[in-house]
């Protein structure tokens, strides 16, 4: 196997890792500074973020997820993921390397793991994805309230919305309602549809604005493209 094929396997694995706050792959966001694999199966990935003070909890999730994704590859015998240039680099890198979990990596500063945080942000992704899917349909509130996921024309956005709902354990089958409360899974009644869609659009706008600012900050901080930033976008 040539090194470029191996390299692309690593990048493909890293492309499965998302920034949980922005809901985009760390590759297309430009967060992968380098990714290499030696002949003996030692993989080393360096990650970088838009600022020195990016939130340490989200940073930890990305480093830990990146570790899991490359460690699962057959050709990788030993994996190292290093977050560069961050105020909590040491705690995060050491914690992930030791598979210590977040609370132990930040002893005294955290009381629990990050599952709740991740779920909160998946719910935001569901709301933002709801706007992406519904906006082009041009349906009335009554029609939207009655629509099932299986009724909709296939699209990338719909697949993504279903994946996010599945990750949260929310109904995602063909018979499931298009509009649900992302916390309870309960269907949204026609009367509540306009406000639900307003919230969905606002959530999407907020995510897009954050992504825009993060990209701008990263571009200022690092002049080079990230690995897989163009190829997989």
């Amino acid at each position, binding site marked *: 196997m040539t090194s470029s094929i191996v390299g692309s396997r690593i990048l493909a694995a890293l492309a499965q890792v998302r920034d949980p706050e922005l809901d985009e792959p760390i590759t297309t966001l430009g967060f992968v500074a380098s990714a290499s694999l030696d002949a003996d199966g030692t993989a080393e990935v360096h990650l970088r973020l838009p600022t*020195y*003070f990016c939130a340490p909890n989200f940073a930890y999730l990305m480093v830990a997820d990146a570790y899991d994704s490359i460690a699962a590859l057959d050709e990788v015998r030993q994996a190292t993921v290093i977050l560069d240039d961050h105020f909590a680099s040491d705690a995060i890198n050491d914690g992930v390397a030791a598979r210590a979990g*977040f609370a132990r990596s*930040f002893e005294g*500063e955290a009381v629990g793991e990050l599952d709740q*945080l991740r779920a909160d942000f998946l719910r935001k992704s569901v709301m933002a994805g709801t706007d992406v899917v519904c906006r082009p349909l041009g349906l009335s509130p009554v029609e939207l309230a009655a629509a099932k996921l299986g009724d909709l024309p296939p699209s990338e956005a719909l697949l993504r919305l279903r994946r996010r709902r599945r990750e949260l354990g929310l109904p995602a089958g063909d018979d499931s309602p298009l509009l649900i409360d992302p916390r309870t899974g309960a269907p949204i009644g026609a009367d509540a549809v306009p406000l639900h869609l307003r919230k969905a659009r606002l959530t999407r706008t907020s995510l897009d604005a954050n992504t825009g600012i993060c990209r701008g900050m990263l571009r200022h901080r690092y002049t080079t493209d990230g690995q897989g930033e163009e190829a997989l976008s």
Partner: protein
Amino acid sequence: MYEKDGEKYFIVDSHMHYWNAAPSNWVPGAEQYAKGWIECFHAYQGLGPAETHWPIEKFMAYTEDDLMKDVFQDGYVDIAVFQPTYLTEWYKEGFNTTERNAALGAKHPGKFIANTRWDPRDGDDGLKRLAENVDRFGSIGVKLYTAEWNNGSRGWKLSDPGAYRYLEKCQELGIKNIHVHKGPTIWPLDKDAFDVSDVDHAATDFPALNFIVEHVGLPRIEDFCFMATQEPNVYAGLSVVIGGLMHARPRFFAKVMGELLFWVGEDKMTFGSDYGIWEPKWQIEGFVDWDYPGSEFDDFPRVTTATKKKILGLNAAKLYGIEVPKEYQLDAGEGAPGARDDAVGVSSESPAASPA
């Protein structure tokens, strides 16, 4: 003041700074944080027009002359509100303290309002210092930075009992305006540090205080908007929205402005340049010229000249009791909530359209 097409705008820059981040002010042993902080700020400047970028050396320690020229002479600002940021764990004399700001203000009477700050983790000593600062500098506003590090603590919440003691003290001392800035760290670290629900609690429990959430709660604009809709005393500070998005991401800027006008409303949005991150000149000129870039924005509230006058100065003038000369005030009936009612499909359901 700024004048364009016969319209006169009274400008209150409600969020700006005079900092010293030069290496000589870095605390030994904390240099990486002091450097990381100012470099992070400098990256934000990169989101403005290229011709307004400064080299990092100037950015670390711009001078009094720079500030007076950029903000007042070239920048159209009538009154500027200093927002202090202490960060004394990283900067020996602090990053920009009330004292440093007020000393500059004293040299230019009538130009500045010097806000102060507090940190609930400073306990009784902090309460005493707050009273002294109000007495000395006449502060009627404070800037709170919930993610600031303090003796091993990585942040606090406005709903903490310790913070409530300070909010009570604020009322007692005549402080009206609480500017809140969320940051990336807070105890415990496994929670979302940018969450704004603590502001919601405090705003409900202290209805006589105004809570201006700076940077509109970025990166949690949606949580901020849902909250601001329900709290009549919560305002949107636009620093970073105009500076960080208007030039760099014009379409997102339009969407964010549309959402803010819908959820928060034009009477509760205030301009802040965030100087020295961005100079006010291009922000004010650009905002006065701005409108939605196309018909896809038709169901957002309309933006009128009155909307812009309020946001650029009249709203903040009300918050700070600044007397606005008659020629800059709105005419009777101008800029009434009717401006929002013009929005297609919004009038009846817009939470911002209901009287506060």
